[in-house]
């Protein structure tokens, strides 16, 4: 049984998730990167449609990542946005990161917390393109001298087929 974090920690991390969401929606990646630990592992997998009785099958193929990024890879993604050559993002598209179902637990490591949340991303692009993507997230946040830092994020997209022609954003 995982131990619930204190109310103070819960509130602090919920604030952090909401703050992070606002930065991501604004595309303020220079500020966002400051919320990440240097040893960040940021990942999201494609879900597979498999029969329930086969989910533990040993022949299951290797996981298929949409994101599987360390700090270098994340900086590369952000670097692409900063070139000014990502034509799909000019004019700027409207995007909202909605965070819900936040739960915070103590982890085995002192000063690190396991945080579950649900994210719903709304995008409004082009003339009438309205997209809504949802994912579950499991995070590990570390309390450092400069506040809480994201050490690990494992997200799982709900769609077996990605229903948007780009994912020029972060979950």
């Amino acid at each position: 049984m995982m131990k619930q974090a204190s109310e103070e920690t819960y509130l602090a991390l919920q604030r952090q998730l909401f703050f992070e969401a606002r930065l991501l929606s604004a595309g303020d990646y220079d500020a966002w990167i400051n919320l990440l630990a240097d040893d960040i592992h940021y990942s999201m997998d494609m879900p597979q449609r498999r029969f329930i009785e086969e989910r533990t099958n040993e022949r299951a193929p290797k996981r298929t990542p949409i994101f599987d990024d360390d700090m270098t890879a994340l900086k590369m993604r952000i670097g692409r946005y900063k070139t000014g050559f990502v034509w799909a993002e000019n004019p700027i598209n409207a995007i909202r990161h909605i965070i819900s179902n936040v739960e915070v637990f103590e982890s085995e490591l002192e000063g690190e917390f396991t945080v579950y949340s649900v994210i719903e991303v709304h995008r409004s692009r082009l003339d009438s393109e309205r997209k809504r993507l949802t994912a579950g997230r499991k995070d590990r946040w570390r309390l450092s001298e400069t506040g809480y830092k994201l050490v690990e994020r494992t997200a799982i997209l709900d769609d077996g087929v990605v229903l948007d022609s780009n994912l020029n954003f972060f979950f």
Partner: protein
Amino acid sequence: MSDLDELIDFKTGRQKRVIYSDPDIYEQELEKIFARSWLFIAHECQIKEPGDFIRTFMGEDEVLVVRQNDGSVKAFLNTCTHRGNRLCKADHGNKKTFVCNYHGWGFGIDGALNGVPLEKEAYYNKLDKDKFGMIEVAQLKSYKGLIFATFDEDAPSLDEYLGDMKWYLDSWLDAMPEGTELIGTAMKVELPVNWKLPVENVSGDGYHLGWAHAGAMTVTTSMSVGGLEVGNTGTDNDEAVSVAGLNGHTVLAALDGQSGYGFYPDPTMAVDYLNANRKTVVDRLGEFRGKKLWGSQLNFTVFPNLQMLPGLNWFRIYHPKGPGKFEMWTWAMVDKEMSDELKQMILDNVSRTFGPAGLFDNDDGDNLQAITEQSRGWRTRKMDVYTNMALGGEHSRDEMPGVVSDGLVCEQNQRYVYRRWLEMMNADSWADVPRYNNLEEAQATEAK
């Protein structure tokens, strides 16, 4: 001249935009292209054990590809022969029986109808179960790990269909002794785009790299790829070629033996692998393919909907879903001999460059979507679009089969893709589809 002939002008490189939006043309494509062509359905490595299956599509028809008890492979329409329900909803797995969720009819992995609930009480034991087995594809054949099938029993053999494209395919599929495998599962994306647009793009459009992908190239490029430059300021016409006229199939090839890994920020591990195995590959494929093709940036297009980029190591099919929509399935494909560490690096890079959040792939969607939409208007659908770059540059080269033009920035390959499209759309049967694997044959069979 039929109506179709007015849609494509192969000689001057012109297409009517209506081919990207018209529902009637799309219906004809399903019948004359997708129902007749050899289509990729699975890699041998995806279905290793008896009962292993993959669910995929041939055109808009849903298909189950199943490994048999004797090691052979069969492919069936994924539909119950009783009332038409989908038989299997999982993407892949292992089954002894496919049981329909509607009334419980059960089919063996060989497609035979084995079980019918209440067979005695409701059918009086008079149902001829032999007549209600799952419906098989007309032909199925494997080429060096890739399983293809066609609904057309009169289609030429897969060997003949692939023609001299095999010579190029072998520079990936048969370079190393153990061959290739797909790793991970399909990364699937649905795009509001006509299916021909990504095919022509990857078949020959080196022109868009330096512009559409300028942002991605800026942050990933570690070595020259065909001389392409951010901002479209450079190309190399000496060390890169466009190859077409291969029975409708096409190749883009840099000829430097390593640029396939040019869009890896740190390609060291991959380049070490190339250096360590170069001699093996030269022994197997000869000097030209071993040194000039293996490891280079290559774009392979197997008409109509299979594309592979060795080096970047992605493997992709497009499933049409109507005139303005398709599903794109991308895998990482690797040599089996590669280390687990290298395989993981490649899987990550495929995902990072050409997956659903891929740095390159995320540049293409809006452009191709807009072209589809700009082919729908009352006025715009009457307009033309052009693939008229490097006209008259076609020539032969002794070292390689096919029709060759210089450089990756060249629209020869797109012209040949549309030529093949027109040939198949105009053909009443396979007997009417010309066959050509070099410049002489291509010119001799050109429609008058």
